[in-house]
């Protein structure tokens, strides 16, 4: 079973895990993210579906969705950033090229600074004359 191997290989790098039918949501620390993603993407051959950023009371969480196509299983590493003012985390674009756009979109929406992202510019609001140069999330405050 790939998932058993995965959890065994990662060991204590995996935090709190929610397990549902064909879905694994687990917390990962920022410094372990690259190891985990590397294993999921390169060793297990998963495909990155997308990533979801959500603003919660306790901070901003980013949830990556990796699909293991052979079994139909989803692996969702979750990063939680406590600092809402200046959220910062590692970019996985150097490992997964396909993550470029989704990380740019999240950066634009939530002001998350993706460390090591090759192209840090807004995805949707380039050439947009009216949107302020702030993450869209901050517009609620003003």
């Amino acid at each position, binding site marked *: 079973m790939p998932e058993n191997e995965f959890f065994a290989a990662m060991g204590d790098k995996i935090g709190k895990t929610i397990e549902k039918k064909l879905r694994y949501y687990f917390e990962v620390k920022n410094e372990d993210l690259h190891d985990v993603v590397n294993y999921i993407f390169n060793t297990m051959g998963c495909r990155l579906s997308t990533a979801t950023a959500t603003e919660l009371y306790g901070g901003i969480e980013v949830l990556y969705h990796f699909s293991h196509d052979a079994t139909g299983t989803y692996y969702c590493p979750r990063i939680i950033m406590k600092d809402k003012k200046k959220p910062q985390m590692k970019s996985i674009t150097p490992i997964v090229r396909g993550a470029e756009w989704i990380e740019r979109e999240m950066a634009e929406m939530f002001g998350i600074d993706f460390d090591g992202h090759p192209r840090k510019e807004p995805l949707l609001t380039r050439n947009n*004359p009216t949107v302020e140069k702030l993450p*869209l999330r901050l517009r609620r405050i003003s």
Partner: protein
Amino acid sequence: MGWYNKRLAKSIWVFHVSASPCNNCDIEILDLLTPRYDLERFGIKLVGSIRHADVLLVSGIFNQKVGPRVQQIYQQAPKPCFVVGIGTCPASGCCFKDSYNISKNIKDIIPINLYIPGCPPKPENMIAGIVKLVEVLNA
């Protein structure tokens, strides 16, 4: 000008402006040109350059990025030039009216001469609308 308007009514070249719609109106506009509806019967032709256009078919809710461009496009069209708003979006904003990224007042961006509501309007509906325009021109 009566004689000229009759010529204009018989030869409407449309330019399709999609200002952040859900794509469905656009597809239905193209559908109008295809065998079942065949708008070329009325001399209507889809053109690629705004300089050749007589009628702008506008669909969508005009988000903040595309709004100024639509305005620019309208200014670049040679007059006389009419604007037809296709679908519910240019008329009322449809379900997107709560969004943060739409232009507040479409009227200020582009003067729409004719609305064809519907989500999306049926091709028959659009033909009826365009025939109305033709009738106005012919009157």
